C-alpha cells in the first residue's frame, strides 16, 4: 500500500498542500470557485512551525488507531487492508473524543456542521492532492519499501562520498 | 458584588483566590486569571476553601477547660487569664519555661509579632512546623548556596529541559506545580521522578525510579559518580562559582553506580540515564520535598541535591535551580520572620551579637536572649522533663503532626498551662486550658510569602464573627503584658518588618496591594522589582561562591526486623491537608477519604491474606493505628504507605532527629500489619 511520506528537510512552508487539500475537498475542485463555496472547503493537513522547522502534519492512518478506538458512534472506521481511517460524517456527533486522543493533532473541525474532519487520502485520486501540489516534493506518495530505499540511497551516497574523499 | 483577592490558605504555592462578596457575605469563589503562577487554576482544596468560613464546627468564643467541660468566657477575661498565667510561669521558672509555637498558616505580620513577643519575654523558645518539613532545606541550602529557599519561581519550570523530582508528590500536594512541569514536558523536557511509591506525580515521568525509602543520597551520589566518570560536569561553573569540589570528587572516588544500585534497588542503567539527562540538558531543575527532608539525614540529603545541581552548573539561570516545595501557605514567611528557635527575623542567628543587637535596638531594647531556643520536638521533650511549664500554641496541631505523637500527648498533658489559638477544637486544643478562637484567612488582611519567595497581600473579604485575628490577639496580649502600648494594623507591622529584614526592605503594603503578582524577595529598596531568580551572578554566601559538602549514604535509623518486617512511609493525598484540621472538617474534600487507609502491595497483601477494604491494625515500636486496606502496586513489596492527615499515624513515626536541622525522621519506620481492627472486617 502506498503511504504519504514527508521528507521534512524539503518542506519550505509554502502551504501549497493545504490549499490543494481544501480545493480537492470542495464541490468545484477549482480554487477560484472554491473560495466562495458554503460550507467553506477546509484543509485536512496542516503546515506547522516547530523548532524553526516547517512541518506538514497529516493523518498517519495509524495501526490500531486511537481515534477509531475512542469513537463511540462508529463514525471512524479503519479499513483492515489499506489501514485508511475513514470518517463518516453522518455518524459523527462532534464529541471530539478522536480529537482529544489523536497524538498528532490532525483531526480538525468542520465548522458549519460541528463535526470532525480528517484526511481521507483523497479517494478517487491516484495521487493525493497534497502530494501532487507539493512544489519541492517534500510530500511523496509511495510504498514504504520505496521510501526506505530513498533514505538508504541517500545514506549510501554520503558514505560513498566520504569513502571517495578518504581515497 | 465584588471580588476580593486573597491568598489560598492551603499549601505553600500561594495561589490567588478571589472571594465573591455580596452584602458582607462570601458567596463564592472566582478564579484570578491574570496571575502568572496559576492562570486562574485552583486545586480541590482551594475550590473548597470557603467551607472553612461558615463551618458550624468553628469555635466562636474563648473557652476555658473546667472540670467536666468547656466554659465560654469573654475576650477580656480570656486575655487576662492568658497574660497572667504566662507571666506567673515566667516569674516562677524563668522565661525559658515558656514555649511558643508559631504558625505557618498565619500571616507574616502575625508571625513577626508572635516571635517578637516571645523574644521580648526573654526566650528563644519559639518555633513552628517548618522544623517538621523543610528545616534541612533552610540549613542545607544556606550552607551550600547561601539561602535556604527555592531558587526560581514555579512557572519558570516551563523553561526546564530536564526536571528531576525527588521525594515530592506535587501532583497531590502542590497540584499547580504539575501545570508547569507538564508545560515543560510539552516543550520536550525529560521528567525523572524518584519515589518509593508510584504516585500521581510519578505518572508524569519519562523515567520513574522506585528507590528504597531513605536511599536518596546513594542515588544522588551514584548519579554524580556517573557524571564525573563521563566528564559531564560543568567544570567552568565549578571553577568560577564554587568551592570545595575536590573534596567532593575525592568522596565520590570509591562510589559507583553499581553501589548506588545495590543500595537503592534501582536498575543501574536507569541511574545512568537519569544522570546523563540531568547533566546534559541546557537547563535542569530539581524539585524535592519531604521525601528528601524528613529523614535523620535530611540535611545531608539536601546537600546531596545541591552538590548535583552545582556540579552540573544547573543553578542561577531560567529553568534551572532547586525547588524545595514548602508545605504551608506561609511556611516560607514564618521562617523569614524568625519564628525559629535559632534564627531571628531575616535568618540572623541568635548567637550573632551584632545582628541581634541591631534588632534589639529596633525594638527599643539593649539586647535579646542569645541562647538558641528549643525546637518543636525538643520543646515537647522539655515539657515531659518538666522544663517547660507553659505553652502558647498559635494555629498548630502538634498532637497530630508531631512524630511519635504519643510523647506529644504526654507532654501537652503535663503542662501547667496550655493555650491554643485555632479555628477548630483540634486534637491539641482539646488538651488546652484555654482556647482562643481566631479569624481565618478571609477574615483578616496581611501578607504571605509563598514557597517561591513571592510576597503577596491577602485582603480581608468578610468581617469575623465573634473572633479576633491572631494579630489582634497578640497585640492585645502584648499590651496587657506591657510589651507595647498599642495594637497594630498589618500595614504597620509590615513596615516594621521592612526595617528589620533587609530582603523585605522594598516590600511595602502599598506596593503589594497594587501588584497582582506579588514581589519576590530579596527586594532591597522600593524601586527594586524583586528577585525571581536567585544566584544569577553570585551566590548569597558571604564570598559569593557556592560550597560543596561531600555526604555519604547512611542506613535509615530503623530497619525492618522480625517483629516489624515492613517499612512504613507517610505522605499526603490531594483532598486532605496536613493534620487534617481543616480538610477533615470539609465535606467536599473529606468525602474522597473519610478515614485512614493504608496502601499495601498485592504481593504482601496476598501473603497476609488481606483483601481490599479490610480493616487492619498497623503497629510500630511506638504505637498503633487502624486503617482500611487499599491494595495497590503503587508501593513496592515490603513498603506500606499511610497518608498522615489522620490522627494516629504519627503515633507510629520515629522521633530520631537530624543532627543539624533537628527534623524528625518521619519518612521511614519499621512496622507490622495485623488483620482485624476493633471494628472487625
Amino acid at each position, binding site marked *: 500500500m502506498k503511504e504519504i511520506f514527508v521528507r521534512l528537510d524539503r518542506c519550505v512552508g509554502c502551504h501549497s498542500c493545504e490549499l490543494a487539500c481544501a480545493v480537492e475537498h470542495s464541490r468545484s475542485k477549482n480554487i477560484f470557485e472554491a473560495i466562495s463555496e458554503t460550507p467553506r472547503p477546509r484543509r485536512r493537513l496542516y503546515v506547522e512551525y516547530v523548532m524553526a522547522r516547517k512541518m506538514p502534519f497529516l493523518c498517519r492512518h495509524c495501526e490500531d488507531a486511537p481515534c477509531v478506538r475512542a469513537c463511540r458512534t462508529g463514525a471512524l472506521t479503519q479499513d483492515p487492508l489499506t489501514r485508511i481511517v475513514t470518517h463518516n460524517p453522518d455518524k459523527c456527533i462532534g*464529541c471530539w473524543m478522536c480529537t*482529544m486522543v489523536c497524538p498528532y493533532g490532525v483531526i480538525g*473541525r468542520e465548522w458549519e456542521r460541528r463535526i470532525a474532519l480528517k484526511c481521507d487520502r483523497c479517494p478517487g485520486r491516484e495521487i493525493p492532492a497534497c502530494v501532487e501540489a507539493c512544489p519541492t516534493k517534500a510530500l511523496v506518495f509511495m510504498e514504504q519499501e520505496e521510501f526506505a530505499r530513498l533514505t538508504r540511497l541517500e545514506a549510501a551516497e554520503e558514505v560513498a562520498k566520504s569513502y571517495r574523499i578518504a581515497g | 458584588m465584588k471580588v476580593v483577592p486573597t491568598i489560598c490558605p492551603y499549601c505553600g504555592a500561594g495561589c490567588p483566590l478571589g472571594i465573591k462578596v455580596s452584602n458582607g457575605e462570601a458567596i*463564592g469563589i472566582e478564579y484570578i486569571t491574570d496571575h502568572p503562577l496559576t492562570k486562574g487554576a485552583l*486545586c480541590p482544596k482551594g475550590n473548597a476553601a470557603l467551607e472553612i468560613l461558615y463551618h458550624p464546627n468553628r469555635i466562636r468564643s474563648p473557652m476555658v477547660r473546667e472540670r467536666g467541660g468547656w466554659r465560654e468566657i469573654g475576650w477580656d477575661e480570656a486575655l487576662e487569664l492568658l497574660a497572667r498565667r504566662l507571666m506567673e510561669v515566667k516569674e516562677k521558672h524563668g522565661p525559658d519555661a515558656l514555649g511558643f509555637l508559631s504558625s505557618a498558616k498565619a500571616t507574616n505580620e502575625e508571625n513577626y509579632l508572635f516571635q517578637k513577643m516571645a523574644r521580648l519575654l526573654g526566650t528563644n523558645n519559639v518555633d513552628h512546623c517548618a522544623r517538621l518539613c523543610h528545616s534541612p532545606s533552610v540549613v542545607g541550602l544556606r550552607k551550600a548556596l547561601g539561602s535556604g529557599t527555592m531558587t526560581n519561581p514555579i512557572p519558570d519550570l516551563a523553561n526546564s529541559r530536564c526536571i528531576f523530582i525527588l521525594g515530592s508528590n506535587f501532583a*497531590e500536594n502542590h*497540584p499547580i506545580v504539575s501545570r508547569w512541569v507538564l508545560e515543560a514536558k510539552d516543550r*520536550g523536557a525529560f521528567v525523572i521522578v524518584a519515589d518509593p511509591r508510584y504516585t500521581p506525580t510519578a505518572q508524569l515521568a519519562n523515567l520513574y525510579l522506585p528507590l528504597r525509602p531513605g536511599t536518596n543520597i546513594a542515588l544522588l551520589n551514584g548519579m554524580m559518580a556517573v557524571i564525573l566518570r563521563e566528564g559531564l560536569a560543568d567544570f567552568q561553573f565549578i571553577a568560577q562559582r564554587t568551592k570545595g569540589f575536590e573534596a567532593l570528587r575525592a568522596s565520590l572516588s570509591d562510589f559507583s553506580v553499581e553501589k548506588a544500585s545495590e543500595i537503592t534497588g534501582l536498575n543501574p542503567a536507569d541511574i545512568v540515564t537519569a544522570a546523563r539527562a540531568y547533566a546534559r540538558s541546557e537547563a535542569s531543575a530539581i524539585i524535592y520535598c519531604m521525601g528528601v527532608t524528613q529523614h535523620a539525614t535530611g540535611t545531608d540529603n539536601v546537600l546531596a541535591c545541591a552538590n548535583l545541581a552545582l556540579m552540573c552548573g544547573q543553578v542561577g539561570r531560567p529553568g534551572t535551580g532547586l525547588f524545595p516545595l514548602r508545605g504551608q501557605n506561609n511556611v516560607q514567611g514564618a521562617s523569614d520572620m524568625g519564628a525559629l528557635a535559632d534564627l531571628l527575623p531575616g535568618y540572623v542567628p541568635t548567637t550573632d551579637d551584632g545582628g541581634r543587637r541591631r534588632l534589639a535596638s529596633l525594638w527599643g531594647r539593649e539586647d535579646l536572649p542569645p541562647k538558641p531556643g528549643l525546637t518543636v520536638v525538643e520543646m515537647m521533650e522539655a515539657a515531659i522533663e518538666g522544663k517547660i511549664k507553659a505553652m502558647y500554641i498559635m494555629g498548630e496541631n502538634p498532637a497530630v503532626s508531631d512524630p511519635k505523637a504519643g510523647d506529644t500527648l504526654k507532654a501537652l498533658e503535663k503542662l501547667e498551662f496550655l493555650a491554643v489559638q485555632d479555628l477548630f477544637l483540634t486534637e491539641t486544643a482539646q488538651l488546652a486550658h484555654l482556647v482562643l478562637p481566631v479569624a481565618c484567612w478571609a477574615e483578616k488582611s496581611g501578607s504571605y510569602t509563598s514557597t517561591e519567595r513571592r510576597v503577596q497581600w491577602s485582603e480581608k473579604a468578610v468581617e469575623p464573627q465573634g473572633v479576633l485575628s491572631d494579630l489582634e490577639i497578640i497585640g492585645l496580649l502584648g499590651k496587657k503584658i506591657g510589651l507595647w502600648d498599642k495594637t497594630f494594623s498589618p500595614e504597620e507591622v509590615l513596615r516594621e518588618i521592612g526595617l528589620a529584614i533587609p530582603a523585605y526592605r522594598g516590600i511595602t503594603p502599598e506596593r503589594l496591594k497594587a501588584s497582582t503578582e506579588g514581589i519576590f524577595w530579596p527586594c532591597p529598596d522600593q524601586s527594586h522589582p524583586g528577585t525571581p531568580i536567585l544566584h544569577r551572578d553570585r551566590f548569597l554566601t558571604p564570598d559569593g561562591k557556592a560550597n560543596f559538602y561531600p555526604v555519604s549514604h547512611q542506613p535509615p535509623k530503623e530497619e525492618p526486623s522480625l517483629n516489624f518486617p515492613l517499612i512504613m512511609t507517610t505522605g499526603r493525598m490531594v483532598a486532605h491537608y496536613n493534620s487534617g484540621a481543616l480538610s477533615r472538617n470539609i465535606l*467536599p474534600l473529606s468525602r474522597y477519604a473519610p478515614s485512614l487507609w493504608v496502601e499495601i502491595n498485592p504481593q504482601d497483601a496476598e501473603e497476609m491474606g488481606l483483601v481490599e477494604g479490610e480493616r487492619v491494625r498497623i503497629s510500630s515500636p511506638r504505637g498503633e493505628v487502624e486503617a482500611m486496606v487499599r491494595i495497590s502496586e503503587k508501593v513496592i513489596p515490603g513498603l506500606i504507605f499511610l497518608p498522615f492527615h489522620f490522627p494516629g499515624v504519627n503515633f507510629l513515626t520515629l522521633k530520631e532527629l537530624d543532627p543539624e536541622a533537628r527534623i524528625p525522621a518521619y519518612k521511614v519506620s519499621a512496622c507490622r500489619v495485623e488483620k482485624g481492627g476493633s471494628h472487625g472486617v
Partner: protein
Amino acid sequence: MGYEVLVRPERCISCYACEVACAREHGGLSNVWVLPQGVPILCRHCQNAACLEVCYTGALEQRDGEVIFHREKCTGCELCLLACPFGAIGLDGKRAYKCDLCSHRRQEGLMPACALTCPAGAISYSCVADFSHRKRGIAGLSWAMGYERRGK
C-alpha cells in the same frame, strides 16, 4: 461560539479539582466525573445527541453547539442516562442533571469552572483548531528532534 471543553487525558493528575469546583458551581452536585484512569468525563454536547433523541418531554435541546437541559421539563425517566454513550448524565434522586458548560458563568463572560480550575491544564475551554494546533506543536518536537539526530 466554537468553544468546546476539550481534555488532554495524558495531563490529568486525578486531583478532583474539577469535581469540587463543578459541585460548588452547581449546588453541590458535580457534572464532571474523574475516573481513576485519569479521565474527566463530562457531557460532550454532541450533535444529533442520543440523549436528546430519546427524550420525549423535550427537556433536552440542541442550540449553538450545546445540549441544553431544561430541568422543569424533566420527568426523571432516565432514558437519557441509558442513551448517553459517555455516562455523562447524573440523576439527583428525581431528575437528570448534566453539564451546562457553566451557562451562568458564561453569561458573565467567564469560562466554565472545570476548565479554569484544572491545575494541570488537562481541561481546556478552547476551539478545536487551537487545541489541535498545540498538539501538533508537541508532536512536532519529537519529530524535529528525530531529524536533528539524523543530521538534517
